[in-house]
């Protein structure tokens, strides 16, 4: 008589692979492999895109929010006679750690960034706090084009035609109280949209949301700009859409991007890079060729325009990035101590 069949392996219900996992098994395996390999190859992919990149990474143009042309005036005193950094360089070479620490990461990772339900809150020590919605960011104040030099703390610089309005106009509308001494700024905190806020491996491990601050007199200076566009159109996400600060006499990290809140305070507000490394990044962060970053000289900079490797683009850095008119704000201050 034949023996009854006895399986050598006993499987119970909970041993059965979940159907969705089974169906997606190849995708799962693939993604595991890609995650491992891509972390090491990420940098190379940027440089040698032709070698690694496949169609998967091709820009999804239908998802790209369309940049709208803006109406603005061109006051002559801000149309400076310096070679502008080409638009494609301004929009693909960005420090915006919310979208990755590589210079080309923000342009790649911010393509689906949604800004049309944006609100910017202005409050704190003011008589009339208010909120600007997405439409009023570009319509409440008359816009003008200003061509500013942008000096990064990493010792490179650009020349950018910004479009925006003076921060002073915004602050005046809220009617600051006498006790207000500083202005605190805050970037959007939205880990769903900003991968750098989800993972410290993407966002460099800085504390989010990104915060910045100015003294009230710095904020009220006519050079201090709230920018909503560049090169004639609304801001691309990687440049800080829909609204960002531009303080041309300070290192770039002061010019906080994608702002959701502006708050007037009586105490000096904390600022992101100062919190991370106070010996390297001060609250003031004025461009100053005499005060070196502990790890590199600030006496000169490389101007990014056109031309390849042989472009002799290293130029002397100017005090206050050449905006001497702000010097009276700091008279009597030891700028090597308040860097």
């Amino acid at each position, binding site marked *: 008589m034949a023996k009854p069949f006895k399986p050598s392996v006993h499987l119970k219900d909970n041993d059965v692979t979940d159907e969705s996992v089974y169906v997606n098994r190849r995708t799962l395996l693939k993604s595991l492999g890609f995650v491992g390999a891509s*972390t090491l190859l990420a*940098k190379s992919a940027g*440089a040698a895109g032709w070698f690694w990149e496949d169609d998967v990474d091709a820009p999804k143009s239908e998802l790209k929010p369309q940049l709208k042309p803006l109406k603005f005036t061109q006051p002559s005193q801000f149309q400076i006679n310096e070679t502008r950094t080409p638009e494609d360089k301004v929009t693909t070479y960005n420090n915006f750690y919310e979208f990755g620490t590589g210079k080309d990461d923000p342009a790649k990772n911010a393509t689906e960034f949604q800004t049309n339900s944006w609100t910017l809150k202005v409050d704190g020590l003011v008589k009339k706090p208010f909120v600007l919605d997405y439409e009023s960011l570009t319509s409440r104040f008359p816009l003008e084009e200003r061509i500013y030099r942008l000096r990064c703390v*990493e010792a490179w610089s650009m020349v950018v035609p910004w479009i925006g309005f003076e921060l002073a106009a915004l602050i005046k509308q809220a009617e600051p109280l006498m006790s207000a001494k500083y202005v605190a700024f805050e970037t959007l905190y939205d880990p769903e949209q900003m991968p750098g806020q989800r993972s410290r491996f993407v966002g460099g491990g800085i504390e989010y949301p990104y915060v910045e601050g100015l003294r009230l007199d710095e904020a009220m200076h006519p050079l201090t700009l709230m920018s909503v566009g560049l090169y004639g159109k609304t801001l691309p996400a990687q440049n800080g859409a829909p609204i960002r600060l531009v303080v041309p006499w300070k290192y770039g990290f002061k010019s906080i991007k994608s702002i959701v809140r502006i708050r007037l305070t009586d105490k000096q507000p904390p600022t992101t890079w100062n919190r991370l490394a106070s010996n390297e990044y001060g609250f003031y962060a004025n461009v100053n060729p005499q005060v070196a970053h502990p790890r590199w000289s600030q006496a000169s900079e490389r101007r990014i325009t056109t031309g390849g*490797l042989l472009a002799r683009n*290293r130029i002397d850095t100017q005090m206050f990035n050449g905006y001497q008119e702000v010097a009276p704000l700091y008279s009597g201050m030891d700028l090597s101590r308040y860097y």
Partner: protein
Amino acid sequence: MPLLKKPVRLSLWQRRGTKAVIHIMAIGYLAWLFLAGLSDKLGPDPVEVLINETGTWAIHFLLLTLSLSPMAKNLPSAEPMQFRRLIGVYTFVYALAHLLTYIAFELQFDMALVASEIISRPYIVVGMTALLLLFILTATSFKTLQRKMGRNWQRLHNTIYIILPLALLHFSWSQKTFWQEPVWYWLLGLLIMSPRIKKWANKVRANRSGSA
């Protein structure tokens, strides 16, 4: 149980062919980088890309050099050792290209600035130390010299174990925050060095119990 009856060996021509491929790829990539940079095809800032690529590939070659001997021990073949010197030399070539890019294209031959930056910036001092050690190893990599130096050659070339942490420290220190790419390289370096670290730890333990 042996995986194979006989260890795998490459024929002379297979070995030469593999070496030729390594040469073509290593020199080819470096040449392509410089040519693309010259014609402004390396993105918004070709200098930054060139510095990053030569630096990270020097570290890739260094890690590869260090993984060949554990590989040879665990594979049924000693062939990986045949390529160690070649890849080691390319580590130096890329590191040298990295320094020259910094001097020629980043600081653009402002020699006063070059001198003050190399002397006064700790992360550059660390990188320069690694490069000088790599230069010494490259200069003594000839077979005849290896034979002449005898046991001292191995002693000298053990400095590769100091070069690795120096190079990684230079990489980490050059970033604005800690949690960036170099973290992965530290982990990979630790993984590659783990069999050796285990061996050194055992040796220390044996010495200690021996003297007790």
